[in-house]
């Protein structure tokens, strides 16, 4: 009877602990306000998308021809009828916001206008504002969790220490995933219903946002274990992101500049150092490029760097993303090992 009771007591403590920590992270997000901030950003964005309208021809593209037209706001467009007689298509649509309160002339095509709006939402609001807020706000979660007075009781539970850290990490990722799903799917549906234009590629923003966040939050976990300081985690994560971005973009600029100047590398040692730094650190600029490529931003914005030219210098988007993920994995394992040895 006693043996049966003991077996029942060992009924999945690891899974129970993990699940409880994930749920606890959502409670923590609600208590410290980040849940409401991200919810507000999502709801406002969805609400704005619900007011979007687009008028004009179904498509201003002619058959399978490439886009070759003048936007209505172009200074050359003074006599639309004459231009159209000579075979020039003038974009005549209008993108409206606030149920027509704000009118924005469509510069190219209807689809292009909607696509541009989606890029602003995914790149500007979700990937920049949303993720930065999430990174700053959630950076305090682990230092609070690791406070010696509260963590001591948890350390005296059967689940191994790594489960505590993994539970919190996954909890924060699931929270950010929920935010990303709400924001991206919500705005996608709202725009789709209002305009009839559905862009499936836009939905790729969800996994890409999560990937971006997961890599930099892993570094925040390491700082939390090492210092237990919210300030260090917040500032450290942001500084690290800037350093990683600079190293990433700097490496591409370094090789591109050398190619443009038609020179061979003057300092192989410098090139090796730049390359090593690039491959070791996570690569936010490459992640950004992947994000924009996947969403087809090349139709609207210039390229951050020329991936094809950089391939000659060993650049590969697949390897870049894989090495960023590997960095996050190594940092997480190091955090768990350090946490496992820590005295409280």
């Amino acid at each position, binding site marked *: 009877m006693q043996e049966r009771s*003991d077996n029942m*007591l060992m009924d999945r403590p690891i899974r*129970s602990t993990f699940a409880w920590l994930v749920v*606890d992270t959502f409670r923590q997000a609600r208590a410290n306000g980040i849940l409401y901030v991200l919810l507000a950003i999502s709801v406002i964005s969805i609400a704005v998308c619900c007011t979007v309208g687009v008028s004009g021809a179904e498509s201003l593209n002619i058959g399978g021809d490439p886009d070759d037209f003048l936007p209505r706001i172009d200074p050359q467009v003074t006599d639309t009828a004459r231009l159209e007689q000579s075979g020039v298509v003038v974009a005549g649509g209008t993108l409206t916001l606030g149920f027509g309160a704000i009118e924005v002339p469509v510069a190219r095509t209807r689809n292009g206008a909607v696509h541009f709006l989606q890029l602003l939402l995914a790149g500007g609001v979700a990937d920049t504002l949303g993720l930065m807020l999430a990174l700053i706000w959630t950076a305090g979660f682990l230092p609070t969790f690791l406070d010696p*007075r*509260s963590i*001591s009781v948890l350390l005296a539970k*059967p689940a*191994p220490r790594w489960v505590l850290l993994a539970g919190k990490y996954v909890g924060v990722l699931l929270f950010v995933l929920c935010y990303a799903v709400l924001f991206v799917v919500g705005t996608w549906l709202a725009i789709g219903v209002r305009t009839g234009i559905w862009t499936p590629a836009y939905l790729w923003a969800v996994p890409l946002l999560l990937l971006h966040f997961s890599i930099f939050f892993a570094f925040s976990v390491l700082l939390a274990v090492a210092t237990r300081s919210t300030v260090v985690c917040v500032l450290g994560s942001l500084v690290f992101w800037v350093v990683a971005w600079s190293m990433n973009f700097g490496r591409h600029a370094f090789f591109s500049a050398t190619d443009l100047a038609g020179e061979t590398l003057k300092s192989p040692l410098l090139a090796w150092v730049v390359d090593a730094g690039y491959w070791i650190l996570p690569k936010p600029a490459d992640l950004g490029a992947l994000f924009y490529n996947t969403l087809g931003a090349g139709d609207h914005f210039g390229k951050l760097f020329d991936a094809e030219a950089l391939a000659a210098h060993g650049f590969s988007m697949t390897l870049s993303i894989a090495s960023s993920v590997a960095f996050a994995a190594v940092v997480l394992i190091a955090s768990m090992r350090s946490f496992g040895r820590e005295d409280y």
Partner: protein
Amino acid sequence: MDVRLNARAAAVFSKVSKRFRVGLGTRSITALDEVSLSIAWGEVFGLIGPNRAGKTTLVKKLLSICHPTSGRIMRMESSISDRSTLARVGYVHENPAFPRYLNARQVVEGYGRMTGLPRREVRERSEELLHRVGLADRLDERIQNFSKGMLQRLALAQALVNDPRLLVLDEPAEGMDLPARRLLDDVIEERRNAGHTVILVSHALTDVRRLCDRIAVLRGGRVAYMGTVAGLAGQDMQDNDDSPLESAVEALYAGAQR
């Protein structure tokens, strides 16, 4: 100190030492120095000593919260590396703190779930224990409004939720009012009667005298005395009179070895 170590005990410490590095790792402080002691099943064992004697460090080692520098520790007849034994351990921290955004019910249920108890069982036990510790009317209130005494009661409830065979209480009565202290006494008595073990870390000699079967006095990280309270206080010890025990303990704190 020569101690007969019994592997079939609730807790066994064999030549356990702990040194903490300080000042950028250039110096070290010895918190525990070759401590050996054995705590039997079914006994209430008191750990007393002056501040920084190593009492809390010793129990933290037993609970795998802190790692020993050297020595061997057995918890519930298994090595401390076997974490499954922690499923039947309860612990009240000397200064309990729980996430401030949780309510009392969430704390006890959540911490109970972490011991591996099935959801339904933990729910029933949580409800029962929170009633018992006098928090029945605050079940769904966020604990950020709780006083120190209420947090101590909550800590006691979460420590009991898994019906622990080994209960470690580190200064549990700190901040508790009289009814809560009586409840604590009852809990300790019930544990003993059930054949379970209680380790009580305390500065309150009255509690130690009333409740403990045996005690260890730590001083400077070493065991200065281990045995019964009567053995330390002498045969002239009377019920309700702490003065012989206080005198003996003061003498030990001052450096006289027994």
